[in-house]
């Protein structure tokens, strides 16, 4: 599947901002069954400095500096991405989960794709006992790991209410769990906390999902959204498998990966500090258009 993705972020400030430094993680990755034909990042006003890097986890990151007073900032990412992932493994045939946990912990590699980075609490995913207890119900002894994780995903999907008003970026995981409310980001964090609590290596992914407009309606411009889900390491043969608890599906060619990390803090699309006391207004428009 080939997609054209457009992601526009605008900031409006109540007072001119003389200086800003931002870190952008918007350009999609070109690995894991995904290749990027072309991609560009356009920032207005024009930055005085722009540094393109690859972060530890292999995500593309861009640091920009804007040193002239501005009241509006616009960051536009455009990319054409081909997605052709290998078929996910049959869940019942994956290794049992205790074995996966032991293999991950014993891994002798600190490489970016090593499971050892995703076994421990991280900034936004602390160890929360009730979440672990919730997850454990799906993990009786010796159950195949992907089968158990799929069930956990399904339970999150049915037990939690999708509610864009319920959480902010800063809502703590324990709170979102207790309220059984949230958005994709919360569901991903909760699922990761549960898996890690059991000793399983679980990662956070940011990206997009193809949306199909309701029957008979036209696709609305900018109506798509960025998305987040989970990746679980299922053993050395299988590697990482994507699980989307918001939609209860194992990730295949409908998902486009932007970045991969331990939690949202590792992959946040736009982060920055700016100078100035004013208030800010943010606007986001995303289009994910399948072109063949």
């Amino acid at each position, binding site marked *: 599947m080939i997609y054209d993705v457009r992601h526009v*972020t605008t*900031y409006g400030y109540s007072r001119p901002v003389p200086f*800003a*430094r*931002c*870190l952008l993680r918007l350009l999609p990755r070109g690995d894991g069954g995904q290749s990027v034909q072309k991609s560009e990042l356009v920032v207005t006003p024009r930055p005085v*400095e722009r*540094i393109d890097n690859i*972060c*530890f*986890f292999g995500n593309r990151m861009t*640091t920009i*500096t804007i040193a002239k007073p501005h009241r509006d900032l616009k960051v536009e990412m455009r990319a054409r991405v081909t997605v052709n992932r290998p078929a996910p493994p049959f869940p019942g045939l994956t290794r049992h989960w205790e074995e996966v946990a*032991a293999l991950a*912990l*014993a*891994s*002798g*590699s*600190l490489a970016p794709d*090593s499971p*050892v*980075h995703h*076994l*421990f*609490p*991280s*900034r*936004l*995913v*602390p*160890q*929360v006992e009730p979440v672990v207890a919730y997850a454990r119900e799906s993990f009786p002894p010796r159950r195949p790991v992907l089968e158990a994780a799929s069930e956990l995903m399904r339970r999150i999907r049915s037990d939690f209410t999708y509610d864009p008003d319920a959480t902010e*970026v*800063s809502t703590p995981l324990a709170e979102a769990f207790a309220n059984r409310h949230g*958005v*994709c*980001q919360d569901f991903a964090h909760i699922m990761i906390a549960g898996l890690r*609590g*059991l*000793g399983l290596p679980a990662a956070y992914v940011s990206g997009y999902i193809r949306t199909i407009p309701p029957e008979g309606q036209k696709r609305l411009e900018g109506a798509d*959204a*960025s998305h*987040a889900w989970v990746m679980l390491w299922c053993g050395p043969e299988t590697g990482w498998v994507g699980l989307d608890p918001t939609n209860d599906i194992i990730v295949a060619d409908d998902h486009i990966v932007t970045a991969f990390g331990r939690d*949202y*803090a590792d992959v*946040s*699309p*736009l*982060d*920055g*500090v*700016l*100078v*100035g*006391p004013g208030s*800010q207004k*943010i606007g*986001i428009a995303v289009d994910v258009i399948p072109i063949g």
Partner: protein
Amino acid sequence: MRVRTERRNALLGGYRPLAGAYDELMAPDGTVRPQWEPFLAEWSSLSQDELGQRFGLADRHVRDTGVSYRVHGDLDERDPLAGERPWPLSHVPLVLTGAEWQTIAAGVAQRAQLLSALLDDIYGKGATIGEGLLPAAVVSGSPDYLRPLQGAPSGGALQLYAADLGRGPDGRWWVLGDRTQAPSGTGYALENRLALARAFPDLFRTMNVERLAAFFQSFRAGLVSRSRRVEPRICLLTPGPLNESYFEQAYLARYLGFLLVEGGDLMMRDGRVHVRTIAGPKRADVIWRRIDGDFADPLELNARSALGVAGLVEAVRQGNVHIANGLGSGVVESRALLGFLPRIGQKLLDEALILPNVATWWCGQAREREIVLDRLDEMSIAPAFRSAGGGRDGQPVLAGELDRPEREALRARIAARGMDYVGQEVVRLSTMPVYENGHLRPHPVTLRVFAAATPDGWKVMPGGFCRISDDADARAVIMRSGVRSSDVWVISDAPVEPMSLLPTADRISIRRVVGTLPSRAADNLFWLGRYLERTEATLRLVRALLGRLLDADDASPGRSDTLRRLVNLLTAWGAAPGGKGQSPALQAAVALHDVEHYGSAHATVREARRTASVIRERLSVDAWRLFGDLQGQLTLEPGLQPSEGEAYEIADRALKSLAAFSGLSQENMVRGAGWRFLDIGRRIERGIATCRFARHFAEATAPTDGLDALLDLTDSQITYRSRYLLGASLQPVLDLVMLDPYNPRSVAFQIDRLETEIAQLPSLADDGMLEAPRRLALKLATECRTAEAGRLDRTSILLFEQLLMGLSSAVADRYFLQSAAPETSRMMGIA
């Protein structure tokens, strides 16, 4: 002689080593270890009173230098000094022989070298992990493993290392823990040394105690060698005055000649780090950080940090700044690592460890986990890593002391997620003497030893500081509350050369102005000057008010009018409540003591002290002491209501302390930019206050008593009387307090000085145009010089006052952070 023997017996009477623990002072057979004999001899030569006096000397030193530490959870935003306590010093040093020190020093240097090599390997090639000597999870589990630094030059470079040691029952020293993140305590070691050396100077000399200065010189040389520039600008990056060891940081910055900066003082541009100074951005070459690495860059590291510098990691990656210790250096502090170090030592150094670790089993491995679960009751269980994201208690527990359900819960947690835990052998610490009510008593002790990377290899500080537990339980795994600290004396076999931190003559290049003043420091000095001057003005108002109340005989015309005006002035700047029916005496008492009134002398002194605390490294010990004195003078004991006479005395004494501060700053402060900002602050405030006084008292209809008050307030009585034989009359008084450039209290004098000082400040513009502060100062000076006393009225005096306030804003806009970097905010997050 008999007296001495008796005293010795009194000191040692009842001193018995604890069962099963090594005692530093006394061998098991009750004899005193020989290295302690000179110490006991000296102490036995002193009576209890004399000893008390010596302790007093040490304690005064501690108090006077403001050696303090912050008690956690004891924070008052309005008064950040409230949580500070004097550093609890025990007056008995830990005495160690040169021979046993050699083993410690060799062991600590070796360990520093090992951890340094390991850090290089972790952030570099990863051979130890690749070859299976270290599980990757021992690294990835640490929140101090900073992935953005992987592969960066000096990502984990170790410059200063500290080891916490304990001595086991067999007399061997064991490593209890490693400090590689940002080890604290070097400053306390230095301070403990100064305090005890002051109390027992002879003892210190005759015992040939090894000196510390050379260590600091090496440490500084090590930092200098990290820069390519010959005279690098070295910054000490502090979390700020609310940090528990801020005093130490300020002290070290002053002692080592580094620039004390907070994150807000630094900025990253073009891949380099700069300090914001009054002369524009200046390059920072080396940063000795005292903030955790994770907090150093809100962009690539912890986004919630307000202590760091956005873009710092990028500057490190580009190799344009050296940070000591490297941002990622905390990763080797984990307890999980301890058990692997002997094998890694063999691999990286080809050596066996000189100092053993506390035996540690990381439960992330199946076999080790079984051992820990089998022997749970005899072990200390501790988190394997510093906690990330909260939610875990960081303290070790003695599993055997838990009740059954707690122990079973712990067992289950270890079984489920063993990688989060280590089991450690319980260490029984050695004990050392502490002086209590005329006797020495054994208390458990741990020792912190420091090593610095220098161009000539690792150097170990010959001494350190020890922490003494108030708890008699020598099993103390980590010492809890009630900890005292003491100096560590390493006894040399030969006399030691005294040495100070001054470099040798051939290495000094003569300079008269040191570095550039950071904008934040300039800001604080300026406000310090203003607060002090405001305090003085308030005190003069109070004194003038009380003086008139006390002067019962005098019923000069206009007295009640003067009293009213004095109270009005106090009320106008928030020092007194004002209002009818309140007696002037009460108003005066409030203006002196009541911190709830933000303009009271007590409140402004507190502000001055708070401001000063942020720039402690720039103030002398004497100056700092004066703040304490002043605050003491203005603090009223609860329930005490001083009489008018007593209140007058209090105001008078406080004015004397302020005069002492002015004297110190005039006589002892180098005329650099720092002094200049202090002086500018004072001059502006004094000018404004004098204008206000003049507006209130010098009217055409003013009674003599009012003019008299004006002369009192401006301290110009004597000058006036020497010039004019008649009583006070309007125009001569106005000329003297407003326009006379020879009267150091006049507005004209302040303006003259302001013009001179401001002309000496650095200029940013190179277009030949005057910058705003200079332009305003010049305008003020011209207005003032061309004014005539006969034409001065309330309106024209108000104009001077407004121009002075305008000048204050212009100085602030140009030189302080508020304009260079007003508050920064985070961009809103998006999903």
